[in-house]
């Protein structure tokens, strides 16, 4: 039982990273129906940004996190503007292939500029372990969980109660009607990319802290897992992405803890297949017909 709770703690920590990433997938999908395959690479950019500002400018955790969010938010906006916006009226497959291209560009560009080998992430937070009834939890885990929860709460507040949040929801459900009340869809889409990418940047800094190691390809697998998390939660659904992220994190940790480490990634893909077969719209997904 102790091992079980231990794995739950570990799973929630990892899951909160996936949840932050999954939110970006789901929001972008919700508003332009694009699976942004470059999203995992934004998280990589966030981790590298954190690495540099901590090493070079001696930023503390909060400053590294916030600055990574700003930089990644901007990167997301720039990528959308140059890569996706010109394709707004093209078939979806064109945009999807472009997203894969952007992903390769970021991965190889970073490998070219900074080398492809892994590097140690500076440990600005000194690890302290607490023992609660035999279950070990580190201050870093608490920090990750707390930060992720605060960010998700803030995101909820923005989406629910701000003008831009309402605009995001309006454009997501009905682009034409949104324009008719005076919303500028392009601006709203930029805002969505900024929010989603900022969360990915935060996740990148936190994963650096948690796993200590970063490299230009680090975004690939978590990117795909977060995408699975978004599908499990119901793509387009914000609470669904959070829940899906935690579920995938838990699942992965539990699979590892029963000695099936080698299959931890495979299990996530099996989950994707099973979900697509039995619950194609995910946990919170609405069963809406494609609009023509």
């Amino acid at each position: 039982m102790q091992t079980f709770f231990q794995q739950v703690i570990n799973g929630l920590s990892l899951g909160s990273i996936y949840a932050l990433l999954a939110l970006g997938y789901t929001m972008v999908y919700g508003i332009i129906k694009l699976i942004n395959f470059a999203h995992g690479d934004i998280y990589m950019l966030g981790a590298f940004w954190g690495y540099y500002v901590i090493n070079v400018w001696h930023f503390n955790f909060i400053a590294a996190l916030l600055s990574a969010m700003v930089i990644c938010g901007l990167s997301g906006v720039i990528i959308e503007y140059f890569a996706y916006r010109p394709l707004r009226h093209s078939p979806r497959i064109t945009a999807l292939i472009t997203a894969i291209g952007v992903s390769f560009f970021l991965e190889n560009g970073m490998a070219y500029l900074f080398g492809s080998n892994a590097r140690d992430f500076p440990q600005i937070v000194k690890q302290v372990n607490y023992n609660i009834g035999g279950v070990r939890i580190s201050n870093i885990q608490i920090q990750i969980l707390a930060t992720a929860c605060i960010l998700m709460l803030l995101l909820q507040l923005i989406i629910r109660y701000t003008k831009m949040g309402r605009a995001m929801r309006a454009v997501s459900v009905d682009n034409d009607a949104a324009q008719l009340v005076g919303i500028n869809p392009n601006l709203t889409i930029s805002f969505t990319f900024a929010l989603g990418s900022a969360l990915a940047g935060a996740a990148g800094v936190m994963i650096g802290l948690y796993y200590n190691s970063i490299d230009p390809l680090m975004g690939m697998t978590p990117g795909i897992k977060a995408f699975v998390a978004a599908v499990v939660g119901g793509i387009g659904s914000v609470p669904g992405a959070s829940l899906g992220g935690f579920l995938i994190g838990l699942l992965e940790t539990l699979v590892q803890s029963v000695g099936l480490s080698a299959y931890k990634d495979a299990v996530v893909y099996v989950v994707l297949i099973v979900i697509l077969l039995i619950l194609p719209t995910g946990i919170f997904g609405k069963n809406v017909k494609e609009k023509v």
Partner: protein
Amino acid sequence: MMILKVSDLAVNYGAIKAVKGVSFEINEGEIVSLIGANGAGKTTILKTISGLLKPVEGTISYFGKDLKHKKASHIVAEGISHVPEGRHIFPGMSVKENLQLGAFLQKDRTQVKELFTEVYSQFPILRQREDQDAATLSGGEQQMLAIGRALMSKPKLLLLDEPSMGLAPIFINKIFEIIKAIKNRGTTVLLIEQNAKKALSIADRGYVLATGEIKMEGTGAQLLASPAVQKAYLGG
């Protein structure tokens, strides 16, 4: 005073010519009705005025200013509000949020409050349903919400695309009462309808559209009395 002047407007969907050189005008304070059968091009004209579609030819001038090259969001800011066919309220959002979105371009909070008071007094049912998901409203209530949402932008010109479509008869009468009330408060209305009899009976002037062209024009009463209109649109 002329508020909107549409001249030789042509709009295509790819190879399909939906609107072929249409001209009409709207004077301040009028209800102008555009009637015509399904597929005549009514919705296309409205979407072009509000900036959702771009014309291939012709001009649209609003208080003498060109609208053709403006984005939809700017056209709303200029004072033209479009209630789309099929209502298009925002599902998954409360009635209140839908109305707040209607006031998206209003910067002044007290102004927004006043608009809420005004719309709620005109549509008391919306106040009662304030926190309800807009998608759960009945068709007639959704139409009121769509009109209320459009009024939240303080339009000078309101474009209505088949507001009575698919509604129960009591709601249909109510909607036409509402349109008259909107006019009496000083808002100019361009009303598109298939319910030609009702539309022409409240319209100051009307135009009859068929296959993308204007076939007839006149005052509401003239068109109602015209044998051709009676034969084609009023069932004999």
